[in-house]
């Protein structure tokens, strides 16, 4: 049972925040300080606020969030590594009245799945992708990811990422923005309270894009990986701010006029 404290709430106090209904009660397996927990929570808060929990279907990746189906209180599927966008395409096209999202890491989306996500953007599929970018392969123990920074040490770039042999980090938001089928692509971060609040707004607008029947929406979120970066939780947030944000600029990479209309109306 949850160990909630037995404290008397003063009568003149009102509830400001509680766990969203779109999250299950399960305690996550994520490491202490892992931003997956925060991002899961934001998606759940948005689903609650939009009142769409019961019509939402999520698709989990292969990566640390492979167990995301334990945490989201919605119908969920497990896709093969990188194929969530293809699975979401198949699912959404026969379930137009449902809210469909994929939740993917940088290996899943930008490495093995890069073909799928580009084609989904190209076709303008009407679902939403939450893209968690922490510049490393977490689940398999810290290998280089497509978004690993030049010089960054990982277990498969033990001397630091050498752009001569391994290429450059991929800027997915910019890559997706080129495709006409993409209505909304933004890059946010959850590296401080302000960033978390902005990310939530972006996630909400992405789901509203879907609800308005528009094209593809994707939120890239600069995130951390304490364990494989070999840093503490706060240290990881600070490192990401100092090194990742300059490389991956934050902001709305592309917002079609239709989405601007939604935002204005909000």
């Amino acid at each position: 049972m949850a160990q909630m404290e037995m404290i008397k709430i003063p009568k003149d106090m009102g509830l400001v925040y509680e766990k969203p209904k779109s999250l299950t009660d399960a305690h996550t397996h994520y490491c202490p300080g892992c931003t997956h927990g925060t991002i899961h929570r934001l998606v759940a808060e948005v689903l609650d606020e939009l009142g769409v929990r019961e019509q939402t279907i999520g698709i989990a990746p292969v990566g640390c969030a492979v167990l995301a189906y334990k945490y989201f209180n919605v119908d969920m599927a497990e896709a093969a590594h990188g194929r969530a966008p293809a699975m979401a395409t198949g699912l959404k096209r026969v379930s137009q009245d449902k809210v469909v999202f994929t939740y993917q890491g940088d290996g899943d989306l930008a490495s093995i799945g890069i073909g799928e996500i580009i084609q989904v953007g190209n076709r303008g599929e009407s679902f939403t992708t939450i893209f968690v970018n922490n510049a490393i392969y977490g689940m398999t123990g810290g290998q280089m990811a497509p978004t690993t920074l030049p010089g960054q040490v990982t277990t498969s770039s033990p001397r630091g990422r050498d752009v001569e042999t391994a290429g450059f980090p991929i800027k997915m938001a910019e890559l997706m923005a080129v495709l006409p089928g993409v209505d909304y692509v933004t890059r946010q971060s959850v590296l401080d309270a302000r960033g978390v609040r902005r990310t939530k707004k972006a996630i909400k607008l992405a789901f509203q894009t879907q609800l308005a029947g528009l094209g593809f929406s994707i939120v890239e979120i600069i995130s951390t990986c304490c364990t494989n970066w070999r840093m503490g939780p706060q240290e990881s947030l600070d490192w990401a701010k100092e090194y990742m944000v300059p490389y991956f600029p934050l902001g709305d990479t592309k917002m079609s006029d239709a989405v601007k209309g939604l935002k204005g109306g909000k």
Partner: protein
Amino acid sequence: MAKGLVIIDEDRCKGCSLCVVACPHQVLRLANDRFNAKGYRPVERANPKSCVGCATCATVCPDVVFTVYRRKRKSKRAAAAAA
């Protein structure tokens, strides 16, 4: 009396300290006299009187440890009506 109150679900906490750092009023600290069921030092209210119910802790917490309450501000109209 404090303006805000945070209720802590201790067993969800992983002792990551992001809330301790983020809280603008130094309300929180990790307990140093106990471990929770997971084996972490859970967060506790060190300084509850300073809490304003801003929910910054809940905003940065990856593990949904916090439920946040805040004293409702009586509007001037309500106060006048009560008078």
